[in-house]
């Protein structure tokens, strides 16, 4: 099926099938300084709500102190934008976790469906609209100057092989969830498989030419014409591969650890492998949009590496008075913040290809969650943390809003890349327009 996908991509990208598959695959590597500075978006998801007192600063404005969960991000404090008071106000079928997850980036109701959530909720299906990451990806892909090979890449860490509204936040359209790839080897193959193909093909060309020459000797002069033409084609292929070899990636594929199974206890290693791949794909301009999804809504990862043996979701249901559970949850969320920091560090340490500053200056990270708080299942005060640059937002601030719909944040993201939508998701939730963040 790989080849089908490949063809599908080519078709979508509007390229001729004649250049399949060895010609495509590498971005335009000249990477001359673009007319408009490059903009990239990364959405990171971690599940089951945050611990508000350990997350939200007490102060508003530029002068604020980081709470425990965000301490790993201290060095990026002046590049952070904390948005308290942003709510997922989408209602309708499905339970809180389902809507929390599948309406998080779509801002629109779930379709009727067969998935029964918790409590007395009405069963529901997929989200009924596109998600903001895919909307922006499509916007980028429509223009010659911002188009990339993939447009977007969806990374997962420990998501598990299950498809339901609790496990999907990206949607290509109504009822069309985009599955994150949790297996870094699969992602590696997706991004760099064609290079491997080219290498395999190159390695058989000499023996192939020898076979053709050998066979040519055995057949009649009349039939030889066909084989001679065939040999010309093989030499042509060889030249094409050689031409390609001269085009090198800006940065080669990352060397990733072998044999790391997609299992709970490997989540820390898988996380770093995925982040390495993500940054590498951006360096090589394979995509300008990415999502990085840690487990799923109701995710029950057991973070043994933090000496926490309870499942994450179970812990998140414990009352505020359970201080042991609170401490564990803070530890868990702090660990997620540390992964965000690893990503930010990598981006900050990488010069923007052909441009000014670092890649972080041109990349906005949005870290969020499907719930405001685990034990109440509230969809208010979703922990929205923005980090980085390039979107024209005034960073280094903690802002506080009064339960404004998160659709307005999505509008702000779209406007920041020049995509001037009037509404996104459920139109009624867009009044007031994009959040003013600059």
């Amino acid at each position: 099926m790989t080849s089908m996908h490949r063809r599908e991509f080519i078709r979508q990208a509007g390229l001729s099938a004649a250049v399949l598959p060895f010609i495509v695959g590498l971005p335009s590597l000249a990477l001359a300084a673009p007319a408009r500075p490059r903009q990239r978006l990364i959405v990171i998801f971690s599940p089951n709500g945050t611990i508000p007192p350990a997350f939200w600063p007490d102060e508003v404005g530029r002068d604020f102190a980081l709470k425990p969960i965000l301490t790993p991000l201290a060095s990026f404090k002046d590049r952070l934008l904390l948005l308290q008071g942003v709510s997922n106000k989408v209602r309708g079928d499905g339970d809180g976790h389902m809507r929390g997850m599948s309406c998080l980036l779509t801002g629109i109701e779930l379709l009727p469906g067969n998935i029964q959530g918790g409590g007395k909720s009405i069963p529901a299906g997929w989200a009924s609209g596109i998600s903001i990451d895919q909307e922006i990806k499509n916007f980028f892909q429509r223009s010659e100057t911002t188009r990339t090979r993939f447009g977007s890449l969806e990374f997962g860490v420990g998501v598990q092989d299950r498809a339901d509204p609790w496990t999907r936040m990206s949607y290509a359209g109504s009822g069309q969830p985009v599955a994150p790839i949790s297996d870094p080897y699969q992602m590696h193959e997706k991004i760099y498989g064609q290079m491997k193909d080219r290498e395999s093909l190159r390695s058989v060309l000499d023996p192939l030419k020898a076979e053709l020459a050998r066979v040519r000797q055995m057949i009649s002069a009349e039939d030889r014409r066909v084989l001679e033409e065939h040999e010309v084609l093989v030499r042509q292929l060889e030249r094409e591969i050689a031409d390609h070899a001269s085009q090198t990636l800006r940065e080669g594929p990352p060397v990733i650890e072998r044999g790391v199974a997609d299992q709970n206890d490997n989540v820390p290693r898988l996380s770093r492998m995925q982040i390495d791949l993500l940054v590498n794909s951006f360096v090589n301009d394979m995509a300008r949009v990415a999502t990085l999804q840690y487990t799923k809504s109701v995710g029950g990862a057991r973070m043994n590496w933090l000496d926490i043996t309870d499942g994450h979701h179970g812990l998140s249901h414990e009352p505020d008075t359970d201080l042991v559970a609170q401490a564990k949850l803070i530890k868990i969320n702090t660990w997620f913040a540390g992964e965000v920091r690893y990503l930010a560090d990598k981006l900050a340490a990488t010069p923007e290809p052909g441009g000014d500053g670092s890649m972080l200056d041109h990349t906005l990270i949005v870290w969020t969650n499907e719930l405001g708080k685990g034990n109440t299942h509230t969809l208010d005060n979703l922990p929205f943390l923005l980090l980085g640059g390039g979107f024209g937002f005034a960073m280094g601030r903690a802002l506080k809003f009064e339960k404004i719909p998160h659709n307005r944040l999505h509008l702000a993201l779209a406007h920041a890349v020049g995509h001037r939508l009037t509404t996104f998701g459920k139109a009624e939730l867009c009044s007031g327009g994009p959040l003013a963040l600059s």
Partner: protein
Amino acid sequence: MSLTNHQRLVLALGLIALGFVVACSGPAARGPVAGKKIFSQQCADCHGDHGQGVEGKYKDALYGDWALPQLTRYIAKNMPDDHPASLSATEAGTVATYVYEAFYSRAAQVRNHPARVELAHLTNRQYAVTVADLLRQFAEPDAPAPTSQGLNATYYSTAVRGRFDATKITHTGIDAELNFTFTAGSEARRRAGGTADFSVQWRGAITADETGDYEFVVRTPNSVRAWINSEPVEPVLDINVSTPENPDHRVTLRLLGGRSYPIGIDYWALPEKAGSPVTPALALRWKPPRGSERPIPARNLLPATPKPTFVVTTRFPADDSSQGYERSISVSKAWDEATTNAAFEVANHVVKKIDRFAGTRPADAARAQKIEAFAAKFVAAAFRRPLAADETQRIVTDLLRAAPEEAAGLRRVVLLALKSPQFLYVGLPAANSEDMRTAARLSFALWDSAPDRELAQAAAAGRLRTRAEIAAQASRLLADPRAPAKLREFFFHWLQLRFVDDLRKDATLYPDFTPELVDDLRTSLGLFVDGVVWSEASDFRELLRADYLVANERLAKFYGLPPPPPGEFARVATPAGQRAGVLTHPYLLAALSYKTSSSPIHRGVFLTRSIVGRALKPPPMAQVFDEASFEPGMTMREKVVRLTRSENCQGCHAVINPLGFSLEWYDATGRFRTEENGRPIDAASDYVVDENEKMRFGSARDVAEFAIASEHANHAFIEQLFHHLVKQPLMAYGPDTIVDLRNSFIASGYNLKKLMADIATLSALPGARPALSAVTPPHSP
């Protein structure tokens, strides 16, 4: 080919007459020097020194099948173009004889362009089938297919997604068609135990009639997992979330016709909560190539468990069909790229299942050796012969050793094997493999695939050298399902029905002529042809004479025939004299019609070319068939007569029209009729056989009897079949071959299987090709 779409009709006019066939009885040569002189003085300016044509003057080459007297008369009357009739009778005769013998006649054409067996690479069909069989041979063979229909079903009174509880089985049995709505209290729900939640497993096989892309649709508002031509762990649909508004889950798979593929469906229905819009239901549907979407009929479902078949999805550029059959005697950039992409598809598949193919596992100490052994076997199978020791070294060992790890090495071996000429070209010579070449010629002729193990073993043992040995293997190969799969394409090709895309008719006139009915017609024709060809008698004459239709209830109702058993296609008798086999099959008749009326010209051209075997050159001019230009109330026959009455038209239409008119008994949908617009059908006319003979044709049956008896028509059919099977020009096998084949065919009682076996045997024979009758004594009819 969908003629019904065309509002314009191309008519053969004018000079086409030169290209028209009649008979070949050449008179003795006289005065070649004088004839050549006249030709170069009077004709060569326009026709070229050798009658090859001159661009800007008369560009077509001069050849055709008129007899010499007719050619002489034509030249005497019409040539040279600027001074017609200026030649004396003697001069006309002399130059006509020269033209006839130098390049015009078939004998001259054969002499000037001797046919030979050319180096050919795999056709697209051969590539797909060969690759499928190549990989298939490394799996266990399937058990023989059962004759029953439907899928095995197991119902459970509980639903836990991803699981089935063997203690909760409420029903097991066979479901013929999967099209259920599990409303509370229904029979289907009762089978599931009547509980609030329930689940069902269906297991079995699906058979594809034709090669192409099949869009499968699982329609359910519940959860479902389905695998089709894959392992259960590789579902093609894994649907947890459904929505009642859009319950169709689709996947498109490419399948090869005439084969069975595993299918499995796991289905879970959770209890409907108050307020839930979900009513449990499940339907398994498909949209076959060139068909409409519909429930998968029971006759395509089997309670069997075949292994998956690898079907390559790379699209190759179309094969060369310029000679009337698909063959591959040239290479192109697009083709070379397709072979690369396809080789990667295969290599990736093999590498993904490397341990299974090599019969090993990651921890196996002997894994590298086993992979090397498998790689060598793979290459030998791809090359269709044993490898020499130095080849094994070059193609297998060296590549594996040079690679960083086994998987990468195996990928390279597969790539090289499938890019190699030994795989891509059919019948290359190689040292010590003459017997294997014979085997390959035979299996490609009958299967479009490489020899199977038994055939390869016979070749290796030197038991594939005499005609009798080869003929015995040919008979065995014909009994394998791969033979009917190949031959079905031939018969649709012969009837020019392989690519029918749009058979819609005027909805006011024919409201019941629905897409479903069109699908049924195609099925009906396929079943009819298969039924005749693969019966004991395998009688070609039955194809043209049969007075029954294979029909289901919908077809029987539409065509006014007695109903067959419910839900089945069966033979249904037609009123005496109304039908004559394929010639009157409504699928063919509807394809050779307009949206509102029959088209005697399309039908006539088809009968001329495919059934009576006369050649027509493409018409040099087109004429619009403009319905508005005729007075109301005219019959179609009257319109055609008027349109083609000029002398120029009559050169061809004297032949086309009588054949086409014989089918005027059938309307645009192929329904039998006795009148048109209130006027009785007139189907009778005189058909010009040759200079001396006319025949009265009044019905399809008259045409059928003529085609059965006519040597020329027989030859045309045999030649088409030969080309389809062998993909080389029949003439390359000697001028008498066609005569021998026909004699054997007639002596066997027009036995098609015998004819196929004869053709395959003859094409497979190494070296000289003695007369066929020498070793295959004719059967008495």
